[in-house]
């Protein structure tokens, strides 16, 4: 059997089996899901090769599946992370109700993502795209928070995106006579400018929604925050990457062929949208009280960088974007798992209530710490490599506006330190509260995936070449040649950063410092609680709340007040309300009086009589 089909079928079977397994024993559901994803991953990494392809004939056209270096990269990302998350999910979802429902959709989402990756024609891509959309919708509403409002918003935007893609696909098919992605790439340049713009914009909207680009992002924060965390790890880590996947095809291949592809219109507007997204989302992230929301906004911001990278379109920036995409999948997946673990163990993710979990959940904290360091882009972890390439590519791109773009990106990632710190501080540091004394470390089955992924980030930071290779292959497939050394970070001006001496230096110094402190001090000190602190002579009582966690960044909030006043969300809500009341008014046509309906008939008849000659006489 074709291995592509096999992967999809295994995942599908896993979905059905886990749905059924719930009837036997709830926990089996998660296990089924994990096993099927694991099996699929094994087949994917062992069996699948570029030679695999298949076609499914449907009346009028056929669906094509195949795999190439670019899709392999994303496929590996999806299955690689999914295995860990699925393992995590077994424990995370334990004891919740409707597990069959959850794991069915969970598996289906992953299947759909693999389908997207495997598709080499637009129709099958669209089919899987929509499957992904509705299955993820079903999970978002699983929690039932705020009764579908979040889900509806997600669905509306997904539908806008999905249908924009649908239209783009159909238009391009009617113009080029083919649904093949490759044919669009090769034929894009032959289209008229208007059609290029139409198709381009539609596709951009389509992928922009999933990758949460600026005006289309409003669904994301709540959707990310309100789904079960085991799924959000997938949702934010991978599902959004499908938008990036499409955007990559579009930006790297399609627009490169276009006659207007190189001009200002597409790439630069998109790049600026990405940058503005990342700045605004970062600002929102750092005023959140809820760790989930914080991460949700942070995801949007991170996606903004990736979009910027793709849109700039130099080899280095594309590599930066793809690198960031992979790294973001890992660290954001881990972080959402961390929050999930905290939520499960402590019962809340409100950073104003929580605190000082570091001693209770040390492994979780370690995973969180590494991921946060990667997120903030602080060397020496993987995140830095991506960020570095992004900045360098912007600076060396030789285009005036990009220099300001780099400032935007920089602003966003500097501000990201704020929420990174807030996240760690809010959950793991600060004053110990008596009500969280009972909290214990999460079960091993949850901790292991988190810690493994966190360590993976370390490895990527030390040996970015591991990731450069597949990315370079992917880019080569997409027609972008990468001809620099894979072990060193370097830009087109010939500047390089060697990670090894950096690592050596950091490690040596850190070991020296830590050893010094440990040997000379640690032994002599004893641990005291966080109540036992320097308070200018006053001794705080046990019940006194000394936690500083409310309005943590109030000064910063005040500084950025003008930006925060206008919320995209409110605009959409107003539009939505306006439309709804308009629609409510329009349906008053149906007055309920039968006679009125009869008059409508006669009016219609009269109008037709009067204008019939004109309209029918063509």
């Amino acid at each position, binding site marked *: 059997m074709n291995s592509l089909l096999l992967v999809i079928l295994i995942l599908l079977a896993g979905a059905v089996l886990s749905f059924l397994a719930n009837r036997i024993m709830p926990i089996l559901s998660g296990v089924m899901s994990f096993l099927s994803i694991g099996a699929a991953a094994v087949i994917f990494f062992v069996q699948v090769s570029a030679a695999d392809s298949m076609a499914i004939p449907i009346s009028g056209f056929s669906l094509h599946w195949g795999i190439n270096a670019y899709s392999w990269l994303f496929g590996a990302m999806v299955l690689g992370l999914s295995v860990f998350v699925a393992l995590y999910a077994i424990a995370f979802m334990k004891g919740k109700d409707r597990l069959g429902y959850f794991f069915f959709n969970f598996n289906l989402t992953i299947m759909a993502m693999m389908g997207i990756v495997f598709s080499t024609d637009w*129709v099958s891509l669209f089919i899987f795209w929509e499957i992904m959309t509705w299955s993820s919708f079903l999970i978002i509403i699983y929690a039932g928070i705020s*009764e579908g409002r979040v889900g509806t918003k997600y669905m509306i935007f997904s539908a806008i995106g999905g249908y924009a893609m649908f239209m783009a696909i159909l238009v391009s098919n009617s113009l080029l006579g083919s649904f093949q992605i490759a044919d669009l790439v090769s034929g894009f340049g032959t289209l008229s400018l208007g059609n290029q713009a139409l198709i381009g914009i539609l596709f951009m909207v389509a992928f922009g929604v999933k990758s949460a680009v600026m005006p289309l992002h409003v669904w994301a924060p709540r959707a990310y925050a309100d789904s079960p965390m085991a799924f959000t790890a997938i949702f934010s880590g991978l599902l959004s990457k499908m938008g990036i996947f499409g955007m990559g095809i579009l930006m790297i291949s399609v627009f490169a062929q276009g006659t207007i592809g190189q001009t200002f219109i597409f790439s630069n507007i998109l790049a600026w949208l990405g940058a503005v997204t990342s700045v605004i989302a970062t600002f929102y992230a750092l005023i959140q009280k809820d760790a989930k929301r914080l991460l949700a906004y942070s995801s949007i911001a991170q996606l903004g960088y990736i979009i910027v990278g793709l849109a700039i379109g130099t080899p280095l920036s594309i590599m930066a974007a793809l690198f960031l995409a992979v790294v973001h999948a890992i660290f954001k997946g881990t972080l959402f798992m961390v929050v999930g673990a905290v939520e499960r163990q402590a019962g809340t993710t409100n950073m104003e209530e929580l605190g000082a979990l570091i001693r209770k959940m040390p492994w979780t904290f370690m995973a969180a710490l590494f991921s946060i360091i990667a997120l903030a882009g602080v060397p020496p972890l993987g995140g830095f490599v991506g960020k570095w390439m992004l900045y360098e590519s912007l600076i060396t791109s030789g285009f005036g506006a990009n220099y300001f773009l780099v400032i935007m990106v920089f602003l966003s990632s500097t501000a990201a330190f704020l929420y990174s710190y807030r996240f760690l501080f809010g959950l793991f540091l600060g004053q110990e509260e008596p009500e969280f004394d009972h909290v214990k470390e999460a079960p091993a089955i949850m901790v292991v995936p988190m810690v493994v992924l966190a360590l993976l980030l370390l490895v990527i930071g030390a040996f970015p070449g591991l990731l450069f290779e597949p990315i370079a292959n992917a880019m080569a497939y997409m027609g972008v040649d990468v001809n620099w050394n894979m072990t060193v970070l370097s830009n087109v001006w010939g500047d390089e950063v060697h990670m090894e001496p950096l690592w050596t230096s950091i490690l040596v110094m850190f070991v020296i410092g830590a050893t010094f402190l440990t040997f000379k001090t640690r032994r002599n000190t004893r641990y005291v609680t966080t109540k036992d602190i320097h308070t200018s002579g006053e001794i705080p009582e046990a019940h006194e709340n000394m936690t500083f966690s409310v309005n943590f960044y109030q000064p910063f909030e005040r500084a950025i007040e003008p930006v925060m006043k206008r919320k995209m969300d409110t605009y959409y809500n107003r539009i939505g309300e306006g439309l709804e009341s*308009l629609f409510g008014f329009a349906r008053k046509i149906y007055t309920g009086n039968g006679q009125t309906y009869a008059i409508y008939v006669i009016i219609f008849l009269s109008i037709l009589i009067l204008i019939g000659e004109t309209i029918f006489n*063509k």
Partner: protein
Amino acid sequence: MVVSPVHFIAVPLLAAFLIPLLAKVSKELVRIVPGLVIGYLSVVSVILMTQVVNTGQPIIEVIGGWSPPFGINLVFSAFTGFLVSLMTFMAFLIWIYSYRFKKIDDAPAQKYFILFMMLVTGSTGIVLTGDIFNLFVFMEITAIAAYSLTAFYRDRDGAEAAFKYLLIGSFASALMLLAIVLLYSQVGTLNMAEIAQRIHTVPQGMKITIFTLFVVGLGIEAEMFPLNGWAPDAYSQSPGPVGVAFAALVVKAGVYSLVRVVFTMFDIHGAYEFLIIMGAITMVIAEISALKQTNLKRMLAYSSIGQMGFVLIAFGIGTNAAVFGALFLMFNHAVIKGLLFMSGSYLVYNTPSKEIKDMAGIGKKLPMVSFFFALGALAIVGLPPFSGFWSKLYILMAAADASFYYLMGTILIVSIIEIVYYFRVMGRLYFGKPQNDVVLQKPTLGGIFAMGVLATVIIVIGIHPDFVTGFIQSAADTLLDKAGYINNVLQLTNL
């Protein structure tokens, strides 16, 4: 006895006349016989359909031994046969569904089954007949059966809905009769094939007047805006299975006759654009009306109207691909909307106020029904991998090929509205907080079976559309082959 298209009319009528006598033998027979008849007709339709597809030739049956145009003839072509098969199939499922339908245990129960059978007969008759006046007669059969069924329940506002339906329906029949009068005065025949042959001799002004009358008259049946004021009321107040029948049979027959008039009988080119415009307006108005509905069945009704607008658009595009898509959509709409109405009825039964907001959390109490409803909702908005997706794909492909970009945009925007209200209900169904503990009316075995069959069809066709595309393609070819239709019917004259 060889099966032939006339069985679709003769057998149920015979049975209808027989049932009052059978009722004196056993009350149970009143329920069973219509089912047997409809089941038999489904078998007949399948046999005939295979025959038609295999030979590639339509079956033209003359009545009374008088060859067309002198006698009335029935045409069972790939096109009409497709619709008839669909209708009988749906009708059979509806019968199964309503066999033990709760409230039909009353004394008028026997009347319900006869009326329903006549509704089926009328709808299939409309599709099969080759004579315009005969079409009118069947339309009236359908209409009167529909009026009675709409007013079937006493505890609802059925009578009001039925009266509105009747008022507008009378307009439809009056306008159609007027059109037939004028048409007859011009061409001197009632056979549709011969009319099609002679229509070019009619003066343009007269032709347009006749056409206008036909369009308005049939537009009422096809739920075209602004002629569809009756539809939401009728859908929402009729018993559940009847709502299904409206969506799956009656409207299909209306659309069929409109399409027959536009495609076969007349040669007016502006009509296609007219269909597109009216279809678009219908769709937009219906969907935005559905958005703020609080009553589930009314929402489904508006959605149904919207889908019919979509069908009209597809027919209006007029290319082979578009007609193919339109027929596919008709098929899908019958199946999916059938499922939605069937499951929706149970949802409505189990809420005291029939309002959507009271359905919160019912998914836990009625898992099967809710699942079917959710499946239907996913399918009707055209999400893959369900059958609704393919028809949407094909229609939009045709629209794109004809460069109707704005039209595509409109359709897709309207689809978003559709998604909003369906998903709103779905979300509430599963994840709302249950409010009350009404006495549950679990679906009957027949109901589950019928819904299960429909759900299976939706999924199977969604995954493998080629099961039906062959039939639909030949149906579309047949519809567009106007000369072929005329030839096939009129060649019998010379025998």
